[in-house]
């Protein structure tokens, strides 16, 4: 009889520990963990829900609705591959609410540095890419005095 008591005690401990482990584990592991792999499947939705700042090239028609001139000029110029937001900055908010949110444009005084980001002569840039030596190419003049930024060829 005494032996049976020992065995029951061991069995009871075993059951309590196992059930306790399963309960704690159930609380600690997030609900979607392991659904798709060794990670929380809901994390994918968290990342997906991040806000979009750049309207992107998919908004081409939306841009053209108000800015038909620049969009048309750019389409046939050497800047045709350059997307609006490359120079004007993130405009997702502007596309959603064109009246109250206005995207930036470079000030006239900063023009040379702004255009120079791409076009200042630099030995590291690929050969054939149009570059100018800013210190000898009409120093002091804003680029837009001669070039239309949407149709840069003179």
């Amino acid at each position: 009889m005494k032996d049976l008591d020992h065995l029951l005690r061991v069995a009871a401990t075993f059951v309590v520990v196992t059930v306790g482990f399963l309960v704690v584990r159930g609380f600690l592991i997030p609900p979607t963990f392991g659904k798709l792999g060794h990670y929380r499947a809901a994390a994918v939705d968290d990342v997906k829900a991040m806000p979009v700042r750049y309207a992107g090239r998919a908004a081409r028609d939306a841009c053209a609705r108000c800015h038909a001139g620049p969009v048309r000029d750019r389409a046939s110029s050497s800047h045709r591959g350059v997307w609006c937001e490359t120079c004007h900055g993130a405009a997702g908010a502007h596309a959603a609410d064109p009246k109250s949110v206005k995207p930036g444009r470079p000030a006239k005084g900063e023009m040379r540095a702004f255009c120079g980001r791409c076009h200042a002569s630099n030995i590291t840039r690929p050969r054939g890419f149009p570059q100018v030596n800013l210190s000898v190419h009409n120093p002091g003049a804003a680029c837009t005095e001669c070039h239309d930024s949407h149709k840069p060829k003179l």
Partner: protein
Amino acid sequence: MRRLDRRRFLRTALGAVVAYAASCLAAPLARAQRFFRAPPWKIRTPYWGFAVDITKCIGCGKCVDACKTENDVPREPFYFRTWVERYAIRKSGEVTVDSPNGGLDGFEPMRDEDSIVKAFFVPKLCNLCENSPCIQVCPVGATFKTEDGVVLIDRKYCIGCRYCIQACPYGTRYYHPTLKVADKCSLCYHRIKRGLNPACVEVCPTDARIFGDLSDPRSPLSRFIAENPVQVLKPAMGTQPKLAYKGLDREVR
């Protein structure tokens, strides 16, 4: 109606059982057949990849700026999801690499241009490894590869131990100073899921960055990889990156 004897009854019953079992097995068998002919990891669509054309990169750093804006990456130096490096190979054979503020403010011309044999810009970002070390080392399963092939971070589950930052052979991860979690290029997962391009691809003025679906042989990315000689970074690491480079020099690490 004829009386059933035992023999006839058993024969009919056996036939019915066999017919029923066969009909039960048909569906799983067909499923198994489909599985072995076209396993899910081969027909998964889309499966995202990326390519960089080094021969087109002009080092304007617009991609770095766009990435920081789109993904709320801290503006200070050292926090980058993507950055641009400048490699210069000298006549002496010496190789110099610099990346002032990750290329965020562009690159000033180098002073000693006469000693340079060749120089080029190399944009860097997550290499989208098929066999990624960062996922293997994460102790809590907070970084993972999605079903469409993008390596992401679970910000709620990350404990900020930074082991993955050490593990990445390409140095593409950083520790976010305010969120206190590891952070990295997500291929703008929130954008590509809405049908948009990643922010860096949108703003690149020379189309040096190509994003697309590897599972579609007609996607711009698949065509780019098929039509150009491309290479990946550190192939000997066995990480199998899905980020391909065109014009990759042997000096690039």
